[in-house]
């Protein structure tokens, strides 16, 4: 049921937008081109941010620093009742979307998709965002002085999301 809705939602939406525009006799394709061009410019502008950020993040991961941080945080997370298995994913989540997908897939393969750990991981992934990445893209790497305030609040939100996911999965099972 859900998978049918999922695969139908995007075509339906395009259908909907195209038919409204057509019915209102707007210049549909011209408007499409105008928007599509602006899309390319935006990409050109965020591309340098992406490449710089991704190289640095992967250096952090490959060198073993991230694992070290995970170990450092373990006692704190244990205190709140977050299982140690999900830590690599919890720490990567705000930083990098693609590594989160990779780590989450690995963990679910290891512990099972429909198990307690698998469910927690799925819930965290679905309810949180790649905070650092989002903030960098939206500010386009501009040097705003109050950016740390946004990051602090957003990361607090991520932490809350992780704790809630764990607690909710405990209740549901």
């Amino acid at each position, binding site marked *: 049921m*859900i998978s049918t809705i999922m695969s139908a939602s995007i075509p339906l939406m395009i259908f909907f937008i195209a038919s409204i525009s057509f019915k209102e006799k707007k210049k549909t394709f011209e408007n499409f081109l105008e928007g*599509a061009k602006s899309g390319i410019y935006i*990409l050109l502008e*965020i591309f340098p941010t992406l490449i710089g950020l991704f190289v640095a993040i992967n250096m952090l991961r*490959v060198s073993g620093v991230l694992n070290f941080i995970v170990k450092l945080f373990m006692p704190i997370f244990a205190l709140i009742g977050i299982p140690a298995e999900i830590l690599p994913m919890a720490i990567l989540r705000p930083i990098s979307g693609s590594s989160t997908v990779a780590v989450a897939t690995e963990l679910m393969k290891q512990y099972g*998709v429909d198990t307690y750990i698998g*469910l927690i991981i799925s819930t965290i992934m679905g*309810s949180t965002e790649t905070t650092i990445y989002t903030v960098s893209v*939206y500010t386009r790497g501009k040097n705003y002085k109050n950016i740390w305030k946004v990051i602090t609040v957003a990361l607090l939100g991520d932490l809350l999301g992780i704790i809630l996911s764990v607690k*909710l999965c405990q209740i549901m099972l």
Partner: protein
Amino acid sequence: MLNIIWPIFIIISIIYACFSGTLPKINDSIFDTIESTMSLVITLAGTMCFWSGIMNILEKTDFFIKLKNGISKVIKLIFKSVEKDSKESEYISLNIISNILGLGNAATPMGIKAMDCMDEKNKKKNFMTKDMMMFILINTASIQIIPTTVIAIRASLGSKNPSGMIFQIWVVSIIVFISVISFGKIFFKREDS
């Protein structure tokens, strides 16, 4: 912010790698990452182009104006200085609609445009306005009706019920969303003064 974080990431990684013997891996990872980012960007170019186009069709319809009037009341609640018929109000609406529908690829270009419009009216260029900060917050705590990525991963791993955790995801997202907005309201209170 990135002026500080970015060099720190690199310096720490390389120093750590020198001691743990992972330096050759770092060397490989630099080239691998450049390559994989390039292929990500090529995919992204297509989706960004396409969705910006589709959203621009929607933006130009009379139907969207009605839709926008409905959403603008909610927007006004969160963003105090965004005027009802302004460009930024339009882009914020498009960004929120795309986020809710799970069209992250369409949400990002609209979000960046919204940020640009807000920054144009920003008097202190080195500081973000409260509205800009709130807008980023909303995007870091985005609510999705259907979390497509997770469902796809679960299905690919042979889950008996790929969308089984959707209820939990909704509950957690909504609570986090409300908390983050409230935190922001309190924490960014003096931002514009």
